[in-house]
């Protein structure tokens, strides 16, 4: 058995952003097991200060390309609440459709391109092009379709263009949505079913590791909460989103340019697995069947199963996307302009579920509609303490393995969270002092 360990994985690959895994063990005693966040800080507060409400979402969505739609939605909700801008039901439906597209794209990208190479013991998705071409082609088809949702409804998949505070600068046509519905039904659904089969075959490669923790996500009476809802903790129950600071409690640690968070314990989990644990009763039939097939059960405390929960969610998003298009077409699309006439200037909070977990934005505007304070709390930042706690429990359990295997297990653990390190570092929490 290994008594001394000295692991330093610099710039972990196949994750978004820059992080190092550092583990030290001396004479059987674990001295250090942590994910160091070394992403360069970007100082978003310096960009937001004094900016017009028209620009808030444009700027904050640049915190992260992979999560750009999530930031945009959360930012717009915070701005609308602060300025008293109401949006139409059509706007809410189109936003939910966009979120479904972005969730499918992000979850598929993670499951196939970032996580699957671990299950198949290869260094990247590229060798799979030759060895498993049908799987890679399927992944690309699914990603393309999900991105097309973004392009048709949002004008562009990365950093969407048409969603603005108060509505959309362009409404998709009935023909475009009808074609999207056809493809979701005829192309995406069979690919999702095949994905579940692929993941079933790989499920044996998922490490058997569990650690009880607190799971935090949105929860809604109406649907599987992604766009809206109360903040719900598996330990302490639900509260309105305005109370988000009491659930996040950010603090600075020296080994990370991203702040850490805690609530009821030393750490908590956000993301697909938290949503699954808190809201599995709100999923559609296809998604619940997929979960059963892949062995995902309610109350799951194995972080490696987050990838499986992402696939379950992708199935839900596809089916609910079809239902939303049906509703939009039944109501008839209205050519409405965005509502951008503020009727108050104050503070607003937005909370949404983005692929990696719950995201909060809070803004305060002055009477000219310019930002005077802003705060963003990012899912990956919330998960960092949980990742460190997982590593502290995992390392002693796998000491019988070779160093190479231990490193592989740790890398796979961090990747399972689908961390978005750019996001986590580019948070801000500032009152601008004039």
């Amino acid at each position, binding site marked *: 058995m290994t008594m001394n360990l000295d692991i330093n994985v610099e*710039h972990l690959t196949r994750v978004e952003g820059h992080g190092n895994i550092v583990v030290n063990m001396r004479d059987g005693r674990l001295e250090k097991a942590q994910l160091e966040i070394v992403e360069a800080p970007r100082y978003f507060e*310096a960009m937001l200060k004094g900016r017009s409400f028209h620009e808030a979402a444009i700027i904050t969505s640049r915190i992260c*390309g992979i999560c750009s739609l999530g930031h945009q939605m959360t930012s717009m909700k915070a701005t609308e609440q602060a300025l008293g801008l109401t949006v139409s039901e059509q706007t809410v439906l189109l936003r939910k459709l966009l979120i479904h597209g972005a969730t499918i794209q992000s979850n598929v990208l993670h499951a196939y391109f*970032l996580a699957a190479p671990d299950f198949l013991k290869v*260094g990247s998705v590229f060798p799979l092009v030759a060895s498993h071409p049908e799987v890679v082609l399927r992944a690309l088809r699914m990603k*393309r379709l999900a991105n097309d949702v973004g392009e048709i409804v949002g004008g562009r998949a990365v950093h969407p263009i048409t969603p*603005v505070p108060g509505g959309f600068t362009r409404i998709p046509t009935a023909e475009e949505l009808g074609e999207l519905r056809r493809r979701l039904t005829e192309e995406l659904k069979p690919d999702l079913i095949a994905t579940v089969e692929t993941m079933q075959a790989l499920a044996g490669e998922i490490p058997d590791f569990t650690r009880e923790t607190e799971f935090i996500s949105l929860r809604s009476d109406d649907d599987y909460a992604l766009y809206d809802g109360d903040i719900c903790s598996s330990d302490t129950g639900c509260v309105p989103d305005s109370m988000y600071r009491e659930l996040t409690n950010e603090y600075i640690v020296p080994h990370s340019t991203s702040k850490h968070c805690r609530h009821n314990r030393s750490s908590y989990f956000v993301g697909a697995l938290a949503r699954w644990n808190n809201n599995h009763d709100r999923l559609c039939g296809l998604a619940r069947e997929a979960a059963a097939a892949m062995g995902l059960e309610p109350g799951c405390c194995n972080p490696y199963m987050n990838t499986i929960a992402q696939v379950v969610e992708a199935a839900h998003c596809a089916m609910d996307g079809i239902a939303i298009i049906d509703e939009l077409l039944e109501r008839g699309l209205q050519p409405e302009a965005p509502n951008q006439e503020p009727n108050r200037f104050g503070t607003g909070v937005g909370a949404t579920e983005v692929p990696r977990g719950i995201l909060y934005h809070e803004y305060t505007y002055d009477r000219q509609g310019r930002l005077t304070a802003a705060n963003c709390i990012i899912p990956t930042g919330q998960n960092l303490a949980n990742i460190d706690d997982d590593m502290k429990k995992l390392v002693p359990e796998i000491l019988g393995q070779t160093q190479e295997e231990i490193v592989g297990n740790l890398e796979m653990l961090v990747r399972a969270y689908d961390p978005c390190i*750019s996001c986590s570092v580019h948070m801000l929490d500032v009152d601008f002092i004039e």
Partner: protein
Amino acid sequence: MAAKPRVAIFDFTGCEGCELNQLNFENQLLDMLGHVDIVEWREAMDDRPGEYDIAFVEGSLSTPDCIKRINEIRRRAKVLVAVGACAVQGGINSMKNTRPIEEVREEVYGKDKYLFPTLPALPLSSVVKVDVNVRGCPMTQIEFLKVFTALVMGKQPVEPTSAVCVECKLKENECVYERGMICLGPVTRGGCDAQCPSVGQYCTGCRGLVPEPNLKAMEDILVTHGLSVNEAWKRLHLYNSHELEGLKS
């Protein structure tokens, strides 16, 4: 036939949206992979080898470590391509350059600011020679494909110099000024096929300024359409603080 070009992809300070946009060539990705060997791409693969023919680099330079790494990449790459607004002109990151750096650090990290070294956010060309630019935020996909094709064929890509307005007029779009909005199309470099005005949004200037921009005229147009002088310049600074600060001095 000559060996396939060896391609490496790197990221510095930014949102990695440009890299994501490279993975978003779902319909072309396998064809593209047929023409090159991807030898290094941290976001998508584990391998880390030696030298390469083409390096695509995203993000701006904002820490001492970034400067070291970009010099190393330049040394190992035959052709260096800056991808996206952060790499080409500093982009959104460079907005922080307009304020004293110590003030900015203190605001975010308070007394812990010394834990995290930082520099003004610089475009790649401030530190190393850049051979080709792919502009946009995120990088314009049609432009990336053109540059990729040209480089694989051993040709020098041509950078567009005309304004977004030119492409917008060619598409016969209704001018967004007619809809009561403002737009930076007159001074912003084209090549995006007027992507934003084509879906009803104003041009935010993400592709950088045209060569020799008439900024006074741009200011006049923005003020005529309701912005204060101060607000007009803020809008212009969104993606172009580095270049505008340079023009000032």
